[in-house]
């Protein structure tokens, strides 16, 4: 048998195998989507949850994402339970930011929250390990071992974290918050673990703005991955090479 014949037969084999794989893959995908992760199952590194924000569709003055986050996670807003804290002391899990180009005057608007970095500075500096990253890329604070040193707040390049300055009442059970500890966007982990979408993304889409996308960055077939591949996106403070889970288009 010549080398050429061998190569041809190998190619034929690989082609058939790939075709068979494609036949199987949709089934596998359906299985994965239909099955919510059981509570006892740990988060998997096969996922990397992320967000994509299209700033061209994000309207100045619109704060639907912020309101949705407040309602979902029980912070800020008209019924804020931080009654004593000054505005500078109140928590912000997500905020709308207005950018004006110093030279051209061009104005942009975007939501800013925890960027869920692959290499988060907040996790690096936390002395107790309270600041942590799940296997699926979501960066969280373990409120049980946070000592309230605020070093993570010094280290975060995005000012994404807030310290709780007072006793809080009327909390939402799935989004616990505590006086003297630090908190930030959880990417609505309570929803993601049940195959849901973060409240901000859901609100942005249900209002028809379609400026925010959520999905698995590790899954090439996900909507977010396809969009990232086709249109590209930018990280805020890309110079730090943190490989953020939240990406922006149009900045």
């Amino acid at each position, binding site marked *: 048998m010549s080398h050429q014949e061998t190569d041809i037969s190998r190619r034929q084999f690989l082609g058939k195998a790939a075709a068979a794989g494609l036949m199987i893959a949709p089934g596998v995908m359906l299985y994965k989507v239909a099955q919510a992760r059981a509570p006892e199952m740990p988060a998997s590194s096969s996922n990397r949850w992320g967000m994509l924000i299209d700033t061209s569709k994000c309207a100045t003055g619109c704060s639907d994402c912020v309101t949705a986050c407040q309602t979902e996670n029980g912070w800020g807003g008209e019924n804020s339970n*931080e009654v004593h804290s000054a505005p500078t*002391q*109140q928590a912000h899990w997500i*905020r709308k930011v207005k950018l004006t180009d110093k030279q051209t005057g061009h104005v942009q608007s975007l939501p*800013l929250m925890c960027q869920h970095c692959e290499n988060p500075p907040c996790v690096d*500096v936390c002395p107790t*390990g309270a600041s942590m990253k799940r296997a699926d890329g979501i960066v969280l604070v373990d409120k049980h071992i*946070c000592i309230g040193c605020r070093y993570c707040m010094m280290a975060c*390049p995005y000012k994404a974290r807030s310290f709780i300055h007072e006793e809080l009442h009327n909390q939402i059970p799935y989004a616990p918050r505590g006086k*003297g500890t630090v908190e930030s966007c959880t990417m609505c982990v309570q929803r993601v673990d049940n195959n849901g979408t973060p409240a901000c993304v859901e609100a942005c889409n249900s209002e028809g703005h379609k400026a925010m996308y959520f999905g698995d960055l590790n899954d090439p077939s996900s909507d977010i991955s396809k969009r990232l591949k086709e249109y590209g996106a930018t990280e805020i403070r890309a110079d730090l090479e943190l490989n953020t889970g939240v990406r922006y288009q149009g900045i």
Partner: protein
Amino acid sequence: MKTLTYKMIDGNSSGYLALLAILGLFVLAGATAFFYMEHNGHWVTGMSNQVVWGIPHVFAVFLIVSASGALNVASISSVFNRKIYKPLAPLSAVLALTLLLGGLTILVLDLGRPDRLIVAMTKYNFKSIFAWNMILYNGFLAIVGVYVWFMLERKMNKFSRYAGFAAFFWRLILTTGTGAIFGFLVARDAYDVAIMAPMFIIMSFAYGLAIFNIVTIAIYSWTDRQLGDVIFERLRTLLGVFIGAVFYFVTVYHLTKLYATKHHGVENFILVDGGIYTTLFWLGQVIIGLLIPAILVFHPAFAKSRKALVSASVLVIAGGLSQMYVTIIGGQAYPLEMFPGKIIESSFFDGGIKAYTPSLPELALGLGGFALSLLMIALAIKVLRLIPDNLSDAEIDPHHKA
């Protein structure tokens, strides 16, 4: 050198008791402030989600850095074998311990959850400089504690040099760690520069020695013991050298920042139009903390003046606190540069200079920690034989001619 007699102070004069009472009141005020802040939460302070570390950290980091520097005299005697410093080595080491304890007390009591100190002691993230520092601080207390024991216990004296070596290297690492708390912060323009670690070491030399000078001269003057010109001259010159070294490092730090265009914003803020931070830098850190003390130390007119050295030391401390305020709070007041070339505005106060006004409880906590350090050293000299009875030139200088 003759055999020196180490004696405890009598500690029953009305002046001594008044000193204890005043320091005790400050400690009490600090403790009250802690309970007030802990009960209510940090909303009663000037700290916020914009400026997260306030005046308690200024005092805490100052004391921790000074602790390392207070060990200078002991280190010079043990490591560099300069016998003339040896009589004051035990006081130097115990002062280092009390300053560190005072600083750590502030740091712990300002935590959001000080009740979780045990968590901080049992769960370590070894990539965190804070976690390293917890090990470094505890190690410093242990090593310097053993060092003091070896110096005070006659049978162990022969080992004190080795403990002195260990303490010397440990304190260099400790202050490197303290400087790295800021130097390794990549997010903020005022930090993120490796020179902060050696700069903190040099600053520790000056601040620690300044406190040591005041404590030593006060003890010898208030207890009518003799402190000769030979020792005095050494302490004076040493402070002068350290002031010069701090000046050099501060200059290089700012030149490094000024060279890179991206840091011009923060440098302009600190050096030109930063309001209180600019004032504290030029007036507090440079003029009061470096230039005037340098004149007091080096000008021949003040060469024999104890008051001039005490004044210079007080000014170095004032300059040190100003420096910590500029470094810690000024560094946070300047906004994060997330979008170069853009003006950034938001409901979370992005973009603007962050306001911070220290509240009374915070100030009380900081001063209370400082007072606690001094109270501990005041009590230590009453219960331990730390200070030679007589350090006149005739006692310590073999070449002395009356």
